């Protein structure tokens, strides 16, 4: 697969080789040898995250085991002005963990212990490298679980979830990471340890926890996380509805919510996504539909029965051509499997795909889908749409072939246009995947220079030397003025 080439010096650049050797000498004073990866073949697996179009070999990869080790690594890098990129499982989709040629990758993979499950207060204290799903598995014995469930939950870590403010299919009802984390232990770039939040609610002072969650590793390094746990709902039930028109499906979502029902999950897929998913996992989706909705309600047994009956009526009233309630748990899981496998399913029908992540006010869905289709034709690149319909988070999947010269670049340009369209209708360039390196140019479309400057000042409040994950998340004013001057820029410039 072709890829965007890094602009930095190569791994064997003499300047970097010297720097690496000197840093390794210092690090060996307090780190055991197996915590330092310095050979090209050792650091290769860390050259990218889930956004594999961008690759860069780091100066070094460090795999510390203790908070004290992380503290000393940060102190040393702070002293030597060496950039640090923290990394969880590397499942991020915006290049947030993309290394820097002259920076170290700080992997938190060995911080993988669940420290405490407190069933009475319903909290879990875990290290940042614990996998999202492992928390729910550890809490299951107490009838509790951790609510945010990103599609990558088998692999992604809670530390990465904190960095990205990860969501999932259940966040309309249960919220994002920011709604479900109570406290973190954070190391600042200078190695200072701070406790933010607590097991008690609404900590005094500024809400630094909210600021930190979703900050893409640019404000500090999280070394411990306390999350809240919820009781597992008594029952969950899903309804599948087919529509011959995307607009009708979008309107049906509004009808359900206006009726006072907050579904646990409310997902939409368009024709191309339905067919790809059905072909892959045989979920039983109607392949002739223009759109399907999956609406899951959960709660007490009686509540679910009551709501499912109303949802069915509302869907039929909204013009669904077919409405199916999962007969049993097996069918419910099959319905969801199709949705959860939508990305890899699209991956099967195209050599490569590129996943976008805009959020829009839902009333603009028909307009955004129509104009996306226009753009898709203009660029000659097919687009399949998967939509967290309840909360307006749209994932257009652009199908392309990276081996065709220039096609990745055109794909990125098309993606950028789609995101700018989201901003134009009052939405945002990223609902849950983060800005990272990928959407840094579109930040200049969503925010004014003064707003971006304010973000940079927030960054300086935590990391005055700008060493934590530099170049991600928030663009420099210069980069934006260059981008704004590009010809053929979409409307909606802030």
């Amino acid at each position, binding site marked *: 697969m072709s890829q965007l080439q890094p602009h930095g010096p190569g791994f064997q650049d003499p300047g970097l080789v010297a720097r690496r050797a000197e840093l390794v000498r210092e690090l060996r004073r307090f780190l055991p040898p197996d915590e330092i990866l310095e050979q090209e073949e050792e650091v290769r697996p860390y050259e990218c995250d889930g956004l594999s179009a961008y690759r860069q070999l780091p100066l070094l990869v460090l795999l510390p085991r203790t908070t004290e080790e992380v503290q000393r690594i940060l102190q040393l890098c702070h002293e030597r002005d060496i950039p640090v990129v923290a990394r969880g499982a590397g499942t991020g989709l915006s290049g947030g963990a993309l290394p820097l040629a002259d920076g170290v990758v700080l992997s938190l993979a060995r911080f993988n212990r669940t420290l405490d499950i407190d069933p009475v207060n319903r909290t879990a204290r875990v290290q940042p490298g614990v996998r999202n799903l492992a928390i729910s598995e550890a809490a299951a014995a107490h009838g509790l679980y951790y609510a945010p469930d990103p599609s990558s939950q088998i692999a992604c870590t809670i530390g990465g979830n904190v960095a990205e403010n990860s969501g999932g299919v259940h966040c309309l009802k249960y919220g994002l990471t920011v709604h479900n984390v109570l406290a973190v232990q954070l190391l600042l770039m200078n190695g200072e340890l701070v406790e933010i939040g607590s097991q008690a609610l609404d900590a005094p002072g500024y809400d630094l926890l909210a600021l930190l969650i979703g900050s893409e590793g640019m404000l500090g390094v999280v070394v411990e996380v306390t999350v809240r746990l919820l009781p597992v709902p008594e029952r969950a039930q899903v309804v599948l509805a087919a529509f011959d028109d995307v607009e009708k499906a979008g309107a049906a979502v509004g009808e359900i919510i206006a009726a*006072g029902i907050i579904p646990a999950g409310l997902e939409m897929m368009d024709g191309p996504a339905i067919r790809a998913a059905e072909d892959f996992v045989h979920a039983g989706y109607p392949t002739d539909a223009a759109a399907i909705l999956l609406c899951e309600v959960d709660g007490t047994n009686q509540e679910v029965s009551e709501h499912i009956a109303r949802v069915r009526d509302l869907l039929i009233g909204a013009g669904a051509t077919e409405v199916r309630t999962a007969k049993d748990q097996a069918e419910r899981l099959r319905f969801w499997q199709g949705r959860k496998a939508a990305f890899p399913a699209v991956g099967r029908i195209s050599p490569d795909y590129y996943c976008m992540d805009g959020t829009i006010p839902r009333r603009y869905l028909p307009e955004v889908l129509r104009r996306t289709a226009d753009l898709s034709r203009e660029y000659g690149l097919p687009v399949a749409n998967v939509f967290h319909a309840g909360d307006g988070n749209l994932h257009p999947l652009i199908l392309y072939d990276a081996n065709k010269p220039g096609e990745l670049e055109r794909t990125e340009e098309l993606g950028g246009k789609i995101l700018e369209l989201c901003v134009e209708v009052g939405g945002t360039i990223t609902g849950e995947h983060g800005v990272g390196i990928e959407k840094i140019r579109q930040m200049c479309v969503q925010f004014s220079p003064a707003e971006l400057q304010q973000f940079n000042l927030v960054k300086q409040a935590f990391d005055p030397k700008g060493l934590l994950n530099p170049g991600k998340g928030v663009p420099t004013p210069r980069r934006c003025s260059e981008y704004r001057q590009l010809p053929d820029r979409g409307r909606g410039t802030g």
Partner: protein
Amino acid sequence: MSQDRTTELLGRVRAAAAARMPINIQGSGSKAFLGRDPVGEPFPVGGHSGILNYQPKELVVTARGGTTLEEIEGTLAKEGQMLAFEPPYFGPGATLGGSIACGLSGPARPYAGAARDFVLGMRVLTGKGETLRFGGEVMKNVAGYDVSRLMTGAFGTLGVLLEVSLKVMPVPAVERTLVQERSAAEAIALMNQWAGRPLPATATCHDGDRLYLRLSGAETSVRQAASVIGGETLSNQGDFWRTKLREQGHGFFQGKKPLWRIALPSATPPLDLLGKWLIEWGGAQRWLRTDLEAPAIRRAAETAGGHATLFRGGDRSGQVFHPVSPALLQLHRNLKQAFDPLGLFNPGRIYPEL
């Protein structure tokens, strides 16, 4: 009433900046009793008001900071929706901006979420005389740092809240409140047991003698849960949760004795501090009327993993909020510097150093 006073407010902040004149941001003044003693030139913002956008099908409302909660909640009620964090008013004219700046939440807080959990976006006026927009009107948005939630509960020390967008929720079909005679220790244990089970609980309270549980949701599920839990049904439940508890009209809150708000891990057994107690939020928020000195109260709260705020009365020139560690305080100061470098907005309202 709808009025855009952005230009006027901007001019006045710039004038204050030029004169290095600290200002005391005022909505209706309903929450002036909170925090440390206000200083600075009064800076009324209540006239900047009006609902700008309400989309019931998208669960979002945007209004100017001076819009009254009464107007917003009245508008939402017509569509069968509400502010699920049940913001306390503490006065008839309570404004959206003031309520979000104070970051207070009502009885539903541990079940439905806090004020900050429902904030989606904001337009703010900074101490540098700039109007900036953060977040938006959509449920999921991770572009840039979450400045809107940082502003929530910052008591106006980082900026004037010009517009706020909130997530709104449907009013539950049915609500029912059950009452049982219980000791404080029993009540705390029960509240936490219930919270660990999939019950439609949305508020809890222990007033010293009785345990109150509010169930909200679909009719069948409330009825089923009530039959399992048992207890007498409270007839005037709206008055109890709204007037007595949220607005602190209960006899417990009357009188001059200092009122402390103690936040604890919810299952913490009753603290051994002399005074009268009222427990809320499933045990996570406990009110204490006492003449005990602040250090003793703070030590007890901290030992139990919590924190204590002098909510009403007492010495409001000292540390009203639980002090934070020196490292955290430095971050606070850096952020204050980032948004309000001249220290114009509500100086000292949270901590003397801010």
